[in-house]
């Protein structure tokens, strides 16, 4: 899996590409722990190019969300494909995460949060 990250308007945007499974999850968790800080508690995970996610991938995203919350930040997901979204619905994690259709909408949501 390819992972790239960039800073956009005070948020870290992490783009994942490929399979997000138990083999790849530790590297992603490490990135979360490095990127989420008191000064940058906003994270967007772009799943547009993720074609597969397993339960360990879900667990890693929950860890990322909790890290952001520790610093009163926001953790959101964007670009989810339908089969991946189904897994979130089955586990009801779609009610737990902020999920935006696109990266732009996720960034807009964080801007609102930062202003508020």
């Amino acid at each position, binding site marked *: 899996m390819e992972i790239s990250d960039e800073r956009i308007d005070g948020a870290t945007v992490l783009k994942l590409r490929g399979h997000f499974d138990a083999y790849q999850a530790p590297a992603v968790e490490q990135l979360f722990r490095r990127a989420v800080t008191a000064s940058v508690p906003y994270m967007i995970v772009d799943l547009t190019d993720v074609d597969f996610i397993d339960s360990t991938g879900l667990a890693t995203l*929950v860890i990322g969300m909790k890290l952001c919350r520790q610093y009163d930040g926001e953790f959101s997901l964007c670009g989810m494909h*339908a089969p991946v979204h*189904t*897994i979130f619905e089955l*586990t009801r*994690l779609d009610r*737990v995460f902020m999920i935006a259709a696109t990266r732009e909408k996720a960034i807009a949501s964080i801007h609102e949060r930062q202003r508020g």
Partner: protein
Amino acid sequence: MKEEQDTSQERICLELPATLQYLHVLSACLAAVLMDMAGVEESTSYNVQLAVHEICTNIVLYAYAGQSKRGRIQVMIVIDRDKKGLTVTVCDDGVPFDEACVKEPVLGSEQVHGYGLFLVRKLMDGVDYRRLAGKNCWRLKKYLVRS
């Protein structure tokens, strides 16, 4: 990988090392098999791949946990083109699976782990576990085309 054919069913057998690194090979095989079958939706293919992947991940993480010898995972895929179904049998010779240790996840909570077997049961039409001759054997069934 070897392929055998009889009149109504086709079987594909694989054996892979019990490491997370190679599980994508099995997913790719399942994806190719399902793509070859008419009328199978992308979501169905994804769900089958994920269910089998979750079983294999659990084998790597738990069945062979703490063992110095690297284990193997034996997989048999049976395609029934007449009945439009797929059965995947996954076996290992690691420690016995203990269902009592598996707790249902609290859905909609911020639970970190525990979704694997729950997803397998939700995504497949039949899930069966047996301990046979020193092996854990999971049999997963999926009806591929809804009438």
